[in-house]
Each structure stands twice: as C-alpha cells, then as structure tokens.
C-alpha cells in the first residue's frame, strides 16, 4: 500500500494506481474527458491536472497518468489548478462548441467567456475512439494520421477499413458526437444554460424525476408559465 496526501487528507491506495484512481476512491472529484475506466490512460485532454510538490517545486501533472507515489502531496483544487482547467475548457469549447460534454464541463467550471477564435471542428483528438477500437473492440481500424495541425483520426488511406466491423463503438464513446442541447447551430458559442438553473421542476413537483438532467428547459418553461 502507498501512503500519500490528497487535499490534506492522508490516504492509502494500492500499488500501481494513479493519482486519479486514488482521488476517485476517496470521493474527491477530478474532472476528466479523455479518461475511461475500461481504457488505458492517455493524458490527452489534461483536464485532470493536479498540483504536486511544495513551494517552488510545485508542478501540474495529469492525474490520470501519474502513478501514486509514497509521500506525494497532491492538491486537486488549488487556484493554479482551477485556472489551468478553465483555460483548457475554454480551448476545448473553441475547438468544438457543438459538443454537449464540453459545454457541460464549461458550465460546471463556470467558464463564462471564450477568448479564443472559435473553430467548429467535429473532433477534439481525445483518442477515446482509437483506444476503444483497439482495446475493447480488438479491431484497430482507426488511428491518428498526419501530425501537428493536420492531425486527425481516420482509417488507413481514408477508405473503408477491412478490419472495421462497423460496431459503432467509436461513436458510442465519442464526447464530440453528442450534440449540445440547442443543437449544432446554436447562436452562442457557450451554452451556460446549466449555470442559471436551480432544479426548479424538482422543487415544484415532488414526484417528478428530471430525466433531462440539468438542461435548463424546465427553468425557461417555468418562466414562461409565470409570465402568462
């Protein structure tokens, strides 16, 4: 067992686990995007950054790939960490504003503006589909191609792959495929509907379960009713 400190809390974790595993085991929330329990950690999105070390030697590392070490001092919610995460989410929104997963993250971290030029890409290069295809579907039909700004995920020679069984695993796991609540052509780059929401429908009607999650629809609906 390894003993380390997360947010001032002394914790004990099994050998071979990462900081993320340790934090999640003790109920400390670290946001992730490119992490999935069934797939190998990849460290692409960097949203899971945490601060380790003390004083001047403190540095940001991705918790999903950093192994838990004895005596490690981890801060998961320091100012530096939250600021870094906010910039990362801003960049993700600028890259793919049509993704619900990205918009939800932006709302959860209270990102209220995007300072970067918004490009409507349909891929954030998180590599989830590539790992899904290789590790869970045992196909290896898709992968990263080219490099730098031309990097993209595709099949060999952009043609239908011989090894692809069209299982749909890549689309199932893709965080960019799920469109945001207002659809792909929303007027604003940032949704932020969830920021304004108190779970009103739950307050008003005791027996209702909100199957939509926190989409903001019920809030607007309630406002309309009140106006009438």
């Amino acid at each position, binding site marked *: 067992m390894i003993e380390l400190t997360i947010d001032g809390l002394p914790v004990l974790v099994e050998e071979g686990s990462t900081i993320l595993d340790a934090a999640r085991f003790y109920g400390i929330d670290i946001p992730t995007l490119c992490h999935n329990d069934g797939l190998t950690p990849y460290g692409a999105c960097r949203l899971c950054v945490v601060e380790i070390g003390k004083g001047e030697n403190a540095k940001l590392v991705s918790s999903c790939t950093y192994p838990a070490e004895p005596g490690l001092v981890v801060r998961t919610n320091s100012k530096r960490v939250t600021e870094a995460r906010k910039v990362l989410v801003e960049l993700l929104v600028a890259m793919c504003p049509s993704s619900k997963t990205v918009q939800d993250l932006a709302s959860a971290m209270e990102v209220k503006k995007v300072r970067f030029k918004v490009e409507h890409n349909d891929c954030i290069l998180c590599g989830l589909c590539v790992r899904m295809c290789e590790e869970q579907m045992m196909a290896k039909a*898709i992968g990263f191609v080219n490099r730098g700004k031309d990097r993209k995920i595709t099949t060999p020679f952009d043609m239908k792959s011989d090894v692809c069984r069209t299982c749909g695993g890549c689309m199932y796991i893709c965080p960019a495929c799920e469109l945001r609540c207002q659809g792909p052509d929303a007027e604003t780059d940032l949704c932020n509907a969830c920021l304004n929401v108190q779970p009103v429908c739950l307050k008003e009607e005791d027996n209702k379960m909100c199957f939509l999650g926190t989409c903001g629809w019920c809030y607007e609906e309630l406002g309309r009713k009140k106006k009438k």
Partner: protein
Amino acid sequence: MIQNPTSRGNCFIETAEIDKILEKHEYKKSALIPILQEIQSKNRWLPCETLKYVSEKLDIPLIDVYSLATFYKSFSLKPRGKHVITACCGTACHVRGGPKVLQEIQNQLNIGVDETTPDKKFTLETVRCLGACALGPLVVIDGKYHGQMNTKKVASILKKYSKKNK
C-alpha cells in the same frame, strides 16, 4: 489477398524486392521505419499496396503503418519524380529572397509545392530550415546543396538536371 504491388506511374517495386528487405530485417516489427526507408529509397515513394503488403507480412495493423508513414515528412505517399527539389523557407533564406526563388522554380516547372511534373522528372518540396543559413537562399536537389540561389540561376540548374535524366 494482396496482389503484387505494382503501381501507377513509372515507379514500381516487386514483392520479391520487399521480401528481400524484410528478410534483411528478420521480419522485426521494431524495424518498420528502416524497412519503409529502404523501400522508399528504392521506389522513391510508398504506394498503398506496398504499405498493405508490409503490414500483412510484419503482422502490424495497417493503421499503425499508415499513421507512421504519414507522421514523418520524409515518407511520401504520393508519386515522386526522379529529382527531388527542396527549397528552404527558413527565416534566413526568406529574407534573402527564398520565396522569389521558390516562385521561379514553380514558374519554370509549372507545378506547385508538393507536386510532381507530369513527366515524373521533378518533385518540388519545401523545408522549414536546413541549418545552413549562411548559404541562403538554399535549394537542395537530390541531396546536393545549391547555395546563394537567385532567380537567374534557377533555369540553368534545372536544365542541368533535366539533361542528366537523358
């Protein structure tokens, strides 16, 4: 089944030749880069069929071979001409008139960057910096450095190389 990877254009490499290269590297998966390099040095470019053949023989997924071949700039998946012209676009070459030289080559050969002349003699490529800034503007043809280039020199040098071909 993978057919004999003969290819379009005037470049082709036989399976027997690829087998020879593969045998030399003992069919090692780790030797993929040197294998592709050797195939490219024989064939000047890597046809789709060749990559498929190599991936099947080495038992490496095709996507891995493809992403490696597209990652490195030295591998070409498009047919290349007999002479590869590399014009430097680095800062030093730029201020000394590199873009003018590049434009002159394009005008003379009537092709754009990363294109090959229809007679498969020349391929024009650009490079960020060759590290020989004192020689700028720099043009490399088939590994030979032509320093202090200017638009007037371009025609004579190109003529020299197209004559060599005959």
